[in-house]
């Protein structure tokens, strides 16, 4: 199976996420490695504590940011490979029928590693681009002895080349696993997995629209994860960046808010687009029968609202607990660290902007669904 650049470009979500992850990790890891070089120059106990807190926060940010984003990228990669196989079932089935092994076909999926190469490579270049400014801001308070930025070859190896190879390998293995089905099953039309609603209260009859909304949501659990995750990221990173004003530099806050917005918007966009595309036929049939666009989009997209809001609430709690933990545990011995309290203005700004963003996205997607020709969708 030969994948073109067009196929790889469809993984924009992973490209953007790996860009953000490597951007942050490069800045902080490079900074941590450089800061180690001045450890011997530190004489005062108070400065040493600050040095250790800074090292620790660098590690926490890299671990959390890198770990979370890596996990999201892997889930997104699996999701995309599954979608790719589903949309190319017949071609793959024919290849298998004429004697290609699953591994031989899945080998082509290694090209998905390129999206990490593009994203992570871009993130690293961008990080080295802003690094002088980042160091300048870090040196401004003159608490630690002055240090300068150096290039560390281990970083491109660990943050760009190794992840690209890892993702290429994961793609092949996952592809192999997904392709290990009988040829006839691939050649046949895909049978949708039935979603069976849970036990209902006796006597409670759900209308068609309510049932469709429930089934649409729970049939694709990966999309539920993406939407909740996007809302979580938006809420946590936006509020964290505002609340950190007194704990970290402005560069740090801006970086977090930009990454939060880019990451959550990308994930939300991909997830909502997938929902809309997957339900285009159902919407068309509903329109043929006489359901209004409002009813159609309410049934297929509306169910994700509460998931997004639950994700937002979880993000709010997470950022509060994390910052409380940082101030109590990480900075416990550092003087003049203000007591951290819940930032209500930050919460309201994040909530209102998220509401506007999410509702605008749903509105835009419903307009797009409405513009699709019923005849064309039914003929697909």
């Amino acid at each position: 199976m030969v994948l073109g650049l067009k196929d790889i470009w469809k993984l924009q979500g992973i490209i953007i996420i790996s860009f953000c992850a490597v951007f942050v990790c490069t800045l902080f890891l490079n900074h941590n490695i450089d800061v180690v070089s001045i450890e011997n120059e530190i004489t005062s106990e108070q400065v040493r504590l600050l040095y250790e807190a800074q090292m620790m926060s660098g590690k926490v940010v890299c671990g959390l940011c890198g770990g979370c984003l890596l996990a999201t990228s892997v889930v997104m990669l699996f999701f995309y490979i599954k979608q790719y196989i589903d949309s190319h079932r017949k071609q793959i089935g024919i290849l298998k029928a004429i004697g290609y092994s699953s591994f031989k076909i899945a080998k082509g999926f290694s090209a998905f590693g390129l999206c990490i190469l593009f994203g992570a490579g871009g993130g690293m270049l961008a990080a080295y681009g802003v690094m002088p400014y980042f160091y300048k801001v870090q040196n401004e308070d003159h608490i630690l002895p002055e240090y300068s930025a150096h290039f560390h070859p281990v970083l491109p190896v660990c943050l760009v080349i190794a992840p690209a190879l890892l993702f290429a390998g994961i793609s092949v293995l996952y592809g192999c696993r997904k392709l290990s089905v009988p040829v006839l099953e691939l050649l046949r039309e895909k049978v949708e997995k039935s979603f069976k609603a849970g036990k209902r209260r006796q006597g409670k009859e759900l209308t068609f629209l309510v049932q469709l909304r429930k089934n649409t949501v729970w049939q694709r659990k990966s999309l539920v994860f993406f939407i909740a995750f996007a809302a979580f990221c938006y809420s946590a990173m936006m509020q964290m960046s505002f609340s950190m004003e007194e704990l970290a530099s402005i560069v740090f806050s801006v970086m977090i808010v930009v990454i939060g917005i880019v990451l959550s918007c990308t994930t939300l966009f991909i997830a909502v687009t997938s929902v809309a595309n997957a339900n285009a036929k159902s919407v068309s049939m509903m329109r043929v029968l006489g359901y209004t666009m409002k009813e159609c989009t309410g049934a297929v997209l509306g169910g994700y609202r509460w998931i997004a809001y639950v994700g937002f609430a979880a993000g709010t709690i997470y950022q509060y607990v994390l910052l409380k933990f940082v101030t109590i545990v990480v900075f416990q011995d550092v003087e003049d660290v203000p007591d951290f309290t819940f930032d209500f203005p930050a919460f309201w700004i994040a909530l209102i902007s998220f509401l506007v963003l999410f509702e605008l996205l749903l509105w835009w997607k419903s307009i797009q669904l409405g513009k699709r020709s019923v005849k064309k969708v039914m003929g697909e």
Partner: protein
Amino acid sequence: MIQVKEVVKSFGNKENINKVLKGISLSIKDGEFVVILGASGSGKSTLLNVISGLERPDSGTVSYDNRDISGLSDKALTEFRKDKVGFIFQQYYLLPNLNVDKNVRMGADLAGNSDYRQVIEAVGLGGKLGKYPSELSGGEQQRVSVARALAKKPEVLFMDEPTGALDEETGRLVLDYISKLHAKYHFTIVMVTHNLNIAEMADTVIRMNSGKIVETYENQMIKTAYEIGW
């Protein structure tokens, strides 16, 4: 009564226009069973789409009881389809993530029909309410689509090759259910097919070729689904 006057419909761009309907005129009486017969590419499905309000004609009019629907807005056309028509397609187009009961309810809720299970019983699927489309045979899926169309109590039922994907036995069974329900509820039927034998079940047959009506005739002897050839 449905009246179609001088309907023209083309597809493609200025350089490559494909005129599919070339001035079609016809009328269909209430409760009539009309078959539009023609070979592939004759324009019969496009005519069905235009008459049913799924597509607008380039020129000409389509009227239901003297109300022209060809110039209606999208919203008004949706309202029209909701109130007046039902559809059965060759490919069923059932919602895969809903069971039989909810797929039929999709049509019933539009008409506020709470007795829709009677229609499911009438097409012989009373025992399969909780089954999903992937768990049904082709014939059963088409019967669900028949029940879905009739559960919204349409005045006109449009069918595009409803037995096209079915074997003979199942095809006859589906047609038999449809004609029995037609006799019971007296809705108008407009069916598109290329099968000359199925045309023998209709009151009126409209034969099309190259975007034009070449012949219209009334059957003197109407046959049942089990009397026609296949």
